[in-house]
């Protein structure tokens, strides 16, 4: 049974990043953050012990959704917003495959929002990489559901009136079992997140803050710029206190349910007072607080694994049910089925 339910991991597979490079020219704009994700994927994939032919990339439509063309695995560049739904079909039919979704903030969260939240709740064993550039790239620069309120774009010349989604909050609300965030410019961290997502059984949602040089350049600069990064980014690590700042001089403390940024240098608080990150907490509140940092004045943006919990997967449960019923009722016999029910003979 394990075979049916699990991604086919084999020992002794020797693959290199080159094995995953495609023969197609990569057609993103020079300088686009998408390139970074592509190289990190090509770097991590050979290490996963999964035969190349068992990887499937499914994407929707958008700049980021071109991703499958640039991988030499199986790939499906589908239609706008439907990647999660198609990938669900692939995985439900074939739990032996390692199924990855490449998607954009418009693709996953605007038109594709419903498939996303349902894939989360059902815990389909998909790895969902959200290329969040907070803009519609391919359609040349309209605001997206992650663009900040007030953003001036082609479709909002006077500033957008929409509040943005917080993708991590949404995923928590929809009960995704693995939620992480990383940065296009932080290569090492991204690699870790990809590895962690691959290792998770169930839906793994990884939000990548990705720079669109053409339509939303610099959106994440405070998080990636060498000067400001340390003060603006909090790297989450399991079982570690939440420390950040240029000289690790700041930390996050929980006051009741309310997070506070505290200084570690003014003598009031020390590392021991800080909130210790627990990825595996069943209580969604922790992750929710982390996700809400962005709406709080003066808080750093967390990257890393917000939450990872363990639940059976949709694809696994479906396969198991088929198997159990087959064992119980015996393998289906067409002749018997056709002649079942009330039959009568005419002689």
């Amino acid at each position: 049974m394990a075979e049916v339910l699990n991604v086919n991991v084999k020992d002794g597979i020797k693959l290199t990043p080159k094995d995953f490079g495609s023969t197609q020219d990569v057609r993103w704009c020079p300088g686009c953050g998408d390139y970074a994700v592509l190289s990190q994927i090509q770097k991590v994939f050979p290490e996963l012990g999964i035969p190349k032919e068992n990887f499937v990339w499914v994407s929707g439509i958008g700049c980021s959704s071109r991703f499958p063309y640039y991988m030499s695995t199986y790939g499906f560049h589908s239609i706008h917003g439907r990647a999660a739904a198609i990938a669900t079909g692939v995985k439900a039919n074939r739990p032996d495959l390692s199924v990855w979704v490449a998607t954009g903030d418009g693709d996953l969260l605007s038109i594709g929002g419903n498939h996303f939240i349902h894939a989360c709740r059902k815990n389909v064993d998909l790895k969902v990489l959200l290329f969040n550039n907070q803009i519609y790239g391919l359609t040349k620069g309209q605001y997206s559901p992650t663009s900040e309120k007030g953003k001036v774009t082609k479709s909002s010349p006077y500033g957008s009136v929409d509040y943005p989604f917080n993708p991590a909050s949404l995923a928590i609300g929809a009960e995704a079992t693995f939620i992480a965030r990383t940065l296009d410019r932080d290569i090492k961290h991204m690699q870790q997140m990809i590895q962690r997502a691959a290792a998770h059984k169930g839906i793994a949602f990884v939000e990548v803050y990705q720079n669109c040089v053409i339509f939303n350049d610099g959106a994440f600069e405070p998080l990636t710029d060498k000067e400001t990064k340390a003060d603006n980014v909090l790297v989450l690590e399991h079982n570690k206190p939440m420390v950040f700042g240029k000289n690790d001089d700041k930390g996050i403390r929980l006051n009741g349910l309310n997070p506070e940024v505290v200084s570690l240098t003014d003598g009031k608080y020390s590392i021991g007072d800080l909130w210790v990150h627990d990825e595996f907490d069943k209580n969604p509140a922790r992750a929710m607080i982390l996700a809400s940092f962005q709406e709080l004045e003066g808080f750093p943006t967390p990257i890393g694994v917000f939450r990872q919990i363990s639940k059976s997967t949709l694809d696994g449960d479906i396969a198991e049910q088929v198997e159990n019923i087959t064992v119980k009722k015996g393998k289906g016999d067409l002749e018997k089925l056709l002649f079942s029910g009330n039959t009568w003979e005419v002689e």
Partner: protein
Amino acid sequence: MTKEVQILEDVTIRFAGDSGDGMQLTGSQFTNTSALAGNDISTLPDYPAEIRAPIGTTYGVSGFQLHFSSNEVFTPGDHPDVLVAMNPAALKVNLKDLKKGGTIICNANAFDLKNLKLANYDTNPLEDGSLEGYELIQAPLTKLTIAALEGTDLSNKEVARCKNFFALGLMYWLFSKPIEPTLDWIKLKFKKNEAIQNANKEALLAGYSYGDNTELFTTKYQVEAAKLEKGFYRNVSGNEATALGFVAASVKSGLKLFLGSYPITPASDILHELSKHKNFGIKTFQAEDEIAGVCSAIGAAYSGALALTTTSGPGLALKTEALGLAVMTELPLVIVNVQRGGPSTGLPTKTEQADLMQAIYGRNGECPIPVVAASTPSDCFYMAMEACRIALKYMTPVLLLTDGYLANGSEPWKVPHENELPEIPTKFRTEVEGFAPYSRDENLARPWAIPGTPGLEHRIGGLEKANINGNVCYEPANHDFMIKLRAEKVRNIRNDIPDLEINGEDEGDLLVLGWGGTYGAITAAINKARKNGLKVSHAHFKHLFPFPKNTEDVLKKFKKILVVEINLGQLAKIVKSEFVIDVLQLNKVQGLPFKSSDIEAKIIEILGGK
């Protein structure tokens, strides 16, 4: 009391009562019993859109009509001979359909003031003479049932609920049917509740003997067994047959079945039926919406399943964008559309044939999808298999059209043996040598190279594909070429499907053309008209896109063509544009199947005669 037994060829009964009165059950029991007794049969359930409308109201009336005969039967009957009316509302709603002089058997106890008012009767029809001209039999069914069940532990309400079995027993008596099949069924069905089991049994028996003893009836009837082809039979509804056809296609192709679907009336039963048969390796996925239903099926097809999605009109509308993707990626996929009354939500529990244009043309771009349609409930089985065959052989989505009438109606089906069913060869590509994702075989089908196959890794998608290598390609000439190639692939299917058959001579004054669920009504009408000497024949499309290749030849041999459809003339439009010939039309869009008499009348109007 001995009663006269009169032999009839042909009887149509309609059971009608409140939604909670169990009329669907009563009807199906009578159907099964008649089938087992060798009659040919056709049925038509008709229930309200509400789940349980308030008791006694006209819009809460549920009906089940069945036509059983010692001859071949093509329709559930135009006008019932007998109407069983469990309450005033049931009488009110159904009386207009009853044959002139037909029999009304009604539950006299239900004709109290309250119920008469609920049914908007000002006076009691049982008393005011308005039913003159009918044979009216007033039986106090409720009271008789209560009397028969005296002494059980059941509540009054539960006892009263058994009256449908009393009525059924009475009808068994009246039509000289065996009661054993229903007794067996009761035993099985209520095995967990002996009290109910016994009560229903007693009610059934009491109804039966009431017939013998009452003076209300002087005659009972008998409909002899029909001369059906030898073999094993079962009664199937269209939805059941569709589901079984897919199971068969799965077995015969050696592919695992995957159904991605979202519930919608009247298609949901296909999902229900398939989800029972998981031991065939079938996976059913109840998706969050119709788009996810078809998309999950596309994902399953891509990864090697025999993939299906099932829906009805509004659901098909939602799936159209994704169907374009299936066309562009050339994946095998079967979409079932069980048509219902439209437009929009329309008449969701009623039948219609108005999605033909949507099926053939309702997509952006030049987006050809083969369309097939089933003609009778049991034909759903074969057309489901046929849809799978075409999808797999040509690597294409295929649309199977049925309708609410076929889906819920039933007929006896001579069950085929597994080994009589055709194999459906499949063909996963595995050789690496010479592989190109958009290369073509002799059917212009591209190879099916599924994930997990080493060396065949490739990318597909909704952007235009380069011929052969399948890369994204914006070349003007390639686009034109591929558009035409996809069209040709589908057009070529006409060489691989049966000729259009003709019922009657292959030339004459009039050809009646139909498709889908009108088959029975047209056949009955044609048979009658031909008996009356009219030179009329019938051809019925099972393949609607492309048409069988002999179609033009068939059409040309008739002076006139009449297209009969439950829409405003969709097939007529297509025939006119395809063959540039004029046609006559018969269109009635009432949410109901055609009566064969409507068609007969039209034929007579065209050809003269009586």
